[in-house]
């Protein structure tokens, strides 16, 4: 465990090697990337197992000294970090393998792997950071990795816009984190997590400051995790290659926000207001994104909105003091959402479109992808025995136990929506008649199916590490030795489980009736309530609102400043030039050869000096 810092360095090595020699390596660059990430993964697993027995390991060195202050860099392996290491390196490894098939034939193949390496490095670095500053550093690097990968198809205008939007929207959140981090530093005198928590625990920081800094840090999480109101970049980020969506915009980076809140949980736990904010934002995001997901027709966008919605769930859990529930859902979600995205990638690979209206009847043609997609769909819908069921259940319990009854019911409705739109997606893609114009639809190569199978298995079994029936192993382990994080398992009324199951089954049934059996009208919503349908299709017009408000405001300010520039600053310029010129003109006029004029000028100059002298008392003191 002492050498855990090596884990992120392997992907970094991959990045550097591919950047320098990628052109020569060509297709072999995939193997470089895969092998190096595999090493990371294996090492992460070893570290995880070591962590089961050994205590938290932390090592640091001075990175930057400012006078007396010494800022350190290092790494820490605690339960959460060890778990995240395995999670990130695993998904990254699978995506690396999958991309070998998916990106086959792209001329910038090595660049893609280099970017993946950079991203994996940053993400692994992020989850090992022992202090806020280092977290922020990797937090930004993760953002760059995501930016580069979204903009991978750089020649597409939409990709360019999406990349820019992703970077800027997350940057807005990052600034919140930046401010929060610095304010916290001046309050507690340290960036170190444990020292901050110690200071907070001993009441050295006032309630007001805790709330403020916690909310600022949460703004960072909002940006990264695509929470309302900074969520709009995430659906657009689907412009990137699909494996990237699976890795970054489903399993790892977007979960970084959740990870951040989890990592700083003792801070949030110290302020009820901050917790409440997290919970409310989470619940709003969950229901809001789920409702948009109901009507989208782009397969990746549906999944993107479901990601946003699920991340809202995790936030709700954390905001309801359900630390374990949030982290648990983070883990299960990583598996089933990565699976869904990879399966969606496989579908797109087969039919070369992302519009679900043009798919259908693929169940028979894609013998592997179909069942795997179904597993993912069942897991996310919270059908019993799949992983999503346990974690979602845990969240609902936490929300109820914390007394957030209103938010609890919102979450239940969101669960219903989720089940409905996921199965709507499933039925439209896989059942019924084919609406595709492609003739030779064929299954993806094994290099793509393999990772999906691994994820499929995990999507089923991952839930059993923390169940009300077989013991909350994960919860106990995560909270071990750290009472600030709450209990390993939250006891709630048993009926919650039945309600959750019931709504998800209801959602599935409704979707089945509408899209498979077709006994219900499909365009029920668009015909009965065109206004609300319109609002949902246009994602509540939030993009348009931002465009009208912030983008135009920035433009307006810029133009206003341009006026200042032209009239004021250039005015100063002109004034200086004009004065110089006027002086020169007067001077040359005075050179008229008349002694009296010269004498006058010389004498008046003397007089002015004398007057100044007399007025100032003779001397500048």
């Amino acid at each position, binding site marked *: 465990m002492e050498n855990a810092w090596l884990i992120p360095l392997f992907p970094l090595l991959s990045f550097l090697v591919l950047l320098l020699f990628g052109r020569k390596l060509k297709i072999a660059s995939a193997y470089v990337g895969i092998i190096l990430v595999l090493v990371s993964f294996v090492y992460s697993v070893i570290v995880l197992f070591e962590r089961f027995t050994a205590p938290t390991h932390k090592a640091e060195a001075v990175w930057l000294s400012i006078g007396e202050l010494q800022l350190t860099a290092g790494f820490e392996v605690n339960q959460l970090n060890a778990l995240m290491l395995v999670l990130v390196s695993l998904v990254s490894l699978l995506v690396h393998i999958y991309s070998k098939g998916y990106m086959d034939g792209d001329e910038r193949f090595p660049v893609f792997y280099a970017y993946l390496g950079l991203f994996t490095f940053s993400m692994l670095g992020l989850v090992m950071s022992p202090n806020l500053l280092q977290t922020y550093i990797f937090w930004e690097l993760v953002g760059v990795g995501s930016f580069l990968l979204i903009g991978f198809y750089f020649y597409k205008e939409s990709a360019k816009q999406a990349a820019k939007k992703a970077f800027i929207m997350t940057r807005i959140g990052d600034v919140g984190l930046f401010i929060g981090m610095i304010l916290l530093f001046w309050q507690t005198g340290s960036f170190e997590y444990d020292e901050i928590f110690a200071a907070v625990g001993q009441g050295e920081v006032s309630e007001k400051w805790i709330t403020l800094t916690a909310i600022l840090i949460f703004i960072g999480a909002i940006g990264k995790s695509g929470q309302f109101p900074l969520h709009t970049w995430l659906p657009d980020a689907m412009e990137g290659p699909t494996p990237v969506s699976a890795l970054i915009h489903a399993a790892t980076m977007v979960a970084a926000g959740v990870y951040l809140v989890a990592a700083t949980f003792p801070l949030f736990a110290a302020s009820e207001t901050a917790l409440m904010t997290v919970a409310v934002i989470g619940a709003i995001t969950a229901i809001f994104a789920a409702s948009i997901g109901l009507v989208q027709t782009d397969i990746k966008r549906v999944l993107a909105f479901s990601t946003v919605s699920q991340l809202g769930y995790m936030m709700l859990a954390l905001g309801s003091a359900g630390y374990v529930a949030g982290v648990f859902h983070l883990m299960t979600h990583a598996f089933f959402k990565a699976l869904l995205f990879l399966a969606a990638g496989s579908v797109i690979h087969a039919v070369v479109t992302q519009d679900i209206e043009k798919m259908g009847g693929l169940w028979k043609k894609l013998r592997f992808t179909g069942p795997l997609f179904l597993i993912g769909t069942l897991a996310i819908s919270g059908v019993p025995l799949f992983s999503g069921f346990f974690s979602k259940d845990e969240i609902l319990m936490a929300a109820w136990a914390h007394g957030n009854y209103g938010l609890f019911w919102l979450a239940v409705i969101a669960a219903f929506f989720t089940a409905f739109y996921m199965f709507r997606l499933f039925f439209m893609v896989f059942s019924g008649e084919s609406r595709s114009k492609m003739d030779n639809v064929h299954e993806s190569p094994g290099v793509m199916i393999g990772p999906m199978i691994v994820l499929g298995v995990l999507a089923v079994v991952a839930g059993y590490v923390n169940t009300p029936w077989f013991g909350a192993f994960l919860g106990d382990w995560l909270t071990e030795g750290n009472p600030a994080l709450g209990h390993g398992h939250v006891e709630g009324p048993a009926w919650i489980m039945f309600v959750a199951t019931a709504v998800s089954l209801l959602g599935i049934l409704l979707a089945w009736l509408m899209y498979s059996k077709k006994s219900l009208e499909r365009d029920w919503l668009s015909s009965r309530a065109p206004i609300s349908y319109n609002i949902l299709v246009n994602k509540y017009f939030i993009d348009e609102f931002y465009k009208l408000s912030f983008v135009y405001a920035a433009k307006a300010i810029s133009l206003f400043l341009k006026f200042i520039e032209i009239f004021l600053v250039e005015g100063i310029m002109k004034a200086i030039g004009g004065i110089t010129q006027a002086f020169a003109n007067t001077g040359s006029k005075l050179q*008229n*050869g*008349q*002694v009296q004029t010269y*004498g006058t000028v010389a004498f008046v100059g003397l007089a002015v000096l004398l007057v100044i002298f007399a007025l100032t008392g003779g001397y500048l003191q």
Partner: protein
Amino acid sequence: MSSVPISAFLALALILFCIGLYGALTKRNTVIVLISIELMLNAVNINLVTFSKYGVAPAITGQVFALFVITVAAAEAAVGLAILIALYRNRKTVNIDEMDQLQG
């Protein structure tokens, strides 16, 4: 001892100097300009003599200097007039604003 304060003499000299200066720089007639300069020199003489009597260290030196100034002024007046006449012969004018050979 003295009922007239030193500043009165100095002020008189100042006023005369200012008048002379104004005349020297505004009059067109060169003769008057020369006369104005004489007036300025006279004002200086008043100062010299005043300080010779009422200065911090009264001494005859001030008066001697006044004598020198008068001498130089006389020489200057003579040469000045000679130049004026030579100029007048060449340009048929004594107006100073028509003498602008200094202009390049």
